[in-house]
């Protein structure tokens, strides 16, 4: 106690309650030493060697010297000091005890002394109590004087061991051995942990590199890669169509997940993964034609991520296509289109039926093998392509509509109209059948006329007149202009010139399934100047009507041709030097009746022309009425004169009349001359 030593009045430095968290430490290390990625064994060894080289030698020496000095001081001086202090303490204690004893002995005798000693004892007690109150406040409080309690708060005095006595050599050795063992053990476990972490990180790095490489490859190919809107942590690739119906638009997004080995997984959620597409079948009589598989499906590297995205895109497109087809088919129930859960049945004509369904790619192949389905059909493939092109067109239209200034907000939501997918295709088929019918009819009746030796100019047809780019209008600025044509009514024009000059006819076939009036209409306009009261029938809806109208026109034409034919002059029996040019008079052109007047009123000759699709019939007979005019029962056919009949085309069996004429005109001339002979 004689030695003065400074007491630290500052509170001991507080240990940080919790050590730095691992991320903070990692950040520190990263700052100080750089990334862990670059750490490997050689670098560490090199660093250690360098450290040793720089400080090692002299520091070790210093430390050795210092330790030696301390070691030298310790055993000698410290022990001496210790003994000295212990001696002092025992001396002081003995002194105190002896004084206390003396005081106690003297207490009875000397009261004054007694009170003083009591005071000192109480002071000592207070002192001890205050000292103890740091560790056992409750206990120490009982022995404290009230004055002290007022002056000093509990636990305001503390004791500490200063300059502890040295430990014995053996225990120091033990401790150092144990601590070294612990340290080695810890180093071992740390190194093994670091090594495992390093391998794990290496693997992780590799798989991350692979993952990001694949993501970048997708991005480089032009796919839109974005953050998944619902999962903030995930990346997603957008392959769908922005303008599709919202349900299908939202399905065109799949998250790009990383497998354990770093390969990319296209996660479409709960959607089925298989490729599906719309199959078009056309049933024609007993034959069934199937559209070919959309190209692109089932290519060689089916497992590449690009291929999977493409497949997903195709599937979503096909499903949307089928969805829209069903929607449109329901609206077309009036055209006897029926829909089932997965099948649309469209009867086109009596022997033709179109079936549309959504099938898996595998089912397609299996179905192809059986039932004698035939693969290559231009119709089915054309139909399949047409509905897809029209859906793309509808998408473009949606974009256009979406980017227009929107209409004001109202409570009612505007209904989305069905797309035009089936209707244009059906309109085309319907139009095609009508055009084919008209073509065959015209060629039939023209060949009939030709067979009769009539030199009628060939009719001309201009099918799909409004689809052809006209030379005057500029080429369509965009693709939409091209497709838009197919949605308009389809129009075909047939025209022909007649035997009579300036006579002509035009038939316009117009098919429209998109807007009113629905169906196919024929617009027939006739022009025959020799028959001034002929009216064009205008719009006709039935094929029969059209056939009748054109046949009638050609009959009129034939009649007027016959009537305009100048017959060779015939010599009159009584009046030899009078020769007169005669013609057949078209008395009832609409009935095909002509009259060859004769001087003898009993011997007027009448010709009846009948024209049908396959046959021309000319009949001549003598009528006995005065002027030859009169029809039916009034015409007073002469019974004794047999009717002459001439039919074209001439049948191989031979005409019943027995006389063969190479052409109509020959017959006409022959009959005229015969009438006068």
């Amino acid at each position, binding site marked *: 106690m004689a030695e003065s030593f400074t007491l630290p009045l500052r509170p001991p430095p507080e240990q940080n309650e919790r050590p730095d968290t691992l991320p903070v430490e990692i950040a520190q290390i990263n700052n100080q030493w750089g990334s862990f990625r670059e750490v490997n064994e050689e670098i560490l060894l090199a660093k250690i060697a360098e450290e040793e080289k720089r400080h090692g030698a002299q520091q070790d020496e210093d430390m050795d010297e210092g330790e030696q000095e301390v070691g030298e001081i310790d055993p000698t001086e410290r022990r001496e000091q210790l003994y000295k202090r212990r001696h002092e303490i025992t001396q002081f204690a003995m002194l105190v005890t002896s004084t206390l004893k003396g005081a106690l002995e003297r207490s009875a005798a000397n009261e004054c002394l007694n009170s003083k000693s009591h005071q000192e004892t109480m002071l000592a007690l207070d002192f001890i109590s205050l000292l103890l109150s740091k560790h056992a406040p409750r206990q120490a409080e009982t022995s404290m004087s009230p004055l002290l309690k007022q002056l000093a708060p509990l636990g305001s005095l503390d004791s500490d061991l200063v300059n502890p006595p040295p430990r014995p050599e053996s225990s120091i050795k033990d401790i150092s051995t144990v601590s070294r063992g612990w340290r080695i053990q810890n180093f071992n476990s740390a190194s093994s942990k670091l090594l495992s972490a390093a391998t794990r990180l290496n693997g992780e790095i590799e798989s991350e590199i692979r993952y990001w490489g694949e993501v970048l490859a997708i991005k480089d190919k032009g796919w*839109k890669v974005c953050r998944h809107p619902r999962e903030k942590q995930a990346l997603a690739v957008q392959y769908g169509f922005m303008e599709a119906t919202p349900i299908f638009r939202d399905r065109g997004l799949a998250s790009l997940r990383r497998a354990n080995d770093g390969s990319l997984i296209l996660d479409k959620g709960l959607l089925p993964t298989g490729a599906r597409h719309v199959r078009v079948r056309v049933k024609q009589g007993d034959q069934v034609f199937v559209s070919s598989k959309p190209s692109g499906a089932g290519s060689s590297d089916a497992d590449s991520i690009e291929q999977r995205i493409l497949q997903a895109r195709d599937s979503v497109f096909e499903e949307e296509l089928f969805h829209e087809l069903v929607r449109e088919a329901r609206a077309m129930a009036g055209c006897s289109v029926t829909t089932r859960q997965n099948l649309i049945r469209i009867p086109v004509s009596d022997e033709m039926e179109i079936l549309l369904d959504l099938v898996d790619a595998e089912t397609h192949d299996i179905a192809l093998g059986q039932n004698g389905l035939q693969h290559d059909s231009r119709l089915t493939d054309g139909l399949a392509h047409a509905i897809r092109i029209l859906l793309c067109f509808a998408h473009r239209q949606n974009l256009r509509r979406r980017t227009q*200034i929107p209409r*004001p907000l*109202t409570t009612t939501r505007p209904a989305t109209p069905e797309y035009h997918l089936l209707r244009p295709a059906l309109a085309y088929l319907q139009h095609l059948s009508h055009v084919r019918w008209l073509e065959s009819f015209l060629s039939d009746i023209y060949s009939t006329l030709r067979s009769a030796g009539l030199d009628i100019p060939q009719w001309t047809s201009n099918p799909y007149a409004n689809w052809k780019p006209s030379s005057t209008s500029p080429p369509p600025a*965009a693709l939409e202009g091209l497709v838009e044509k197919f949605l308009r009514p389809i129009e075909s024009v047939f025209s022909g010139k007649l035997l009579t000059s300036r006579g002509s006819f035009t038939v316009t076939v117009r098919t429209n399934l998109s807007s009113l009036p629905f169906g196919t209409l024929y617009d027939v306009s006739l022009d025959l100047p020799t028959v001034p009261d002929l009216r064009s029938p205008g719009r006709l809806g039935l094929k029969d009507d059209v056939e009748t109208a054109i046949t009638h026109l050609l009959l009129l034409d034939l009649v007027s041709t016959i009537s305009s034919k100048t017959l060779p002059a015939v010599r009159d029996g009584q009046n030899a030097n009078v020769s007169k040019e005669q013609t057949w008079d078209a008395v009832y052109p609409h009935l095909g009746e002509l009259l060859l007047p004769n001087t003898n009123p009993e011997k007027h000759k009448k010709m009846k022309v009948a024209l049908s699709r396959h046959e021309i019939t000319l009949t001549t007979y003598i009528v006995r009425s005065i002027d030859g005019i009169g029809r039916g029962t009034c015409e007073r056919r002469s019974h004794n004169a047999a009717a002459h009949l001439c039919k074209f085309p001439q049948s191989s069996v031979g005409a019943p009349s027995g006389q063969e004429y190479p052409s109509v005109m020959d017959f006409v001339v022959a009959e005229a001359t015969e009438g006068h002979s």
Partner: protein
Amino acid sequence: MHELLLFASVPVHQHHGLLQQLAGLTAMQPRHALERRLIFKAFRKPGLITGRVGGSQDLQQASAGDLQRVNKMLNGGMFYTQVVGPVSNHDFAPTSKSVSTPDADTQMAGVDEPKPPAPAPSEAAHVYDYDQQTWKLEFRDIPEAATRSAVTTRVMASAALPRGDIEPSMNAWGYGFVTEYLVEGDVFIHNDIVIFLHRVLHYPTGEKEPREPRRNLPPLKKMAPLEKTGSYVLQASITVQDGSNQETMKTASQHLLGLREQLKSAVRLEPADRLSLDTRAK
């Protein structure tokens, strides 16, 4: 009809980036718009019947109310109104050589949009025909006061006007020409919301302010932005057919607020100061 609006100011350096962002958000190419805007002011025609002021004690209460309403309609509000005429780049007088073309850089990548055909050489000699100019009358009321929602709401109406010289017609309707300016910007459509990123251009100063709408347009390059820094205004608007229907109004404002939330990181859309949009003529 009602119009709900939010505005934001866009500094010029942010303009290009914002165009890209909006193109991404709305999935469409910006549509460049140039509009002539003529300001007309209503004037009180002399000889207009002002109606009886006061003296309605002998009338029934209801009819007095009717009369007041009619009076208010006839004489109450006098407004500035604007006539908007869309113009194109070709309508402006050509500068010395270079014809200003739309910034090709704003064509966003990823969307395959056919570019408009390049102007044919014959169009270089295109002359602005004032008599064929289409016009639209746009009336905007002062924004509604004390609306608790965080959007600007105002009554609006638009009507198509005859082509050509509009001033005589407007005069006949009781409007006098005040001034005109040009608005240049890009339009985006986002569902029901029209996003118009625009700025106001002034005609070149120096020439005398004419008393009637211009028949010729100066070169576009010579037009000076009203804001000297050339910054833009982002206006997001949505129109509602029936302003008295609380439900649609609520939906509309929710749409707008949703857009504000989406654009939060880019710009801050805010309702405008009501009095700065005052169209009343004093």
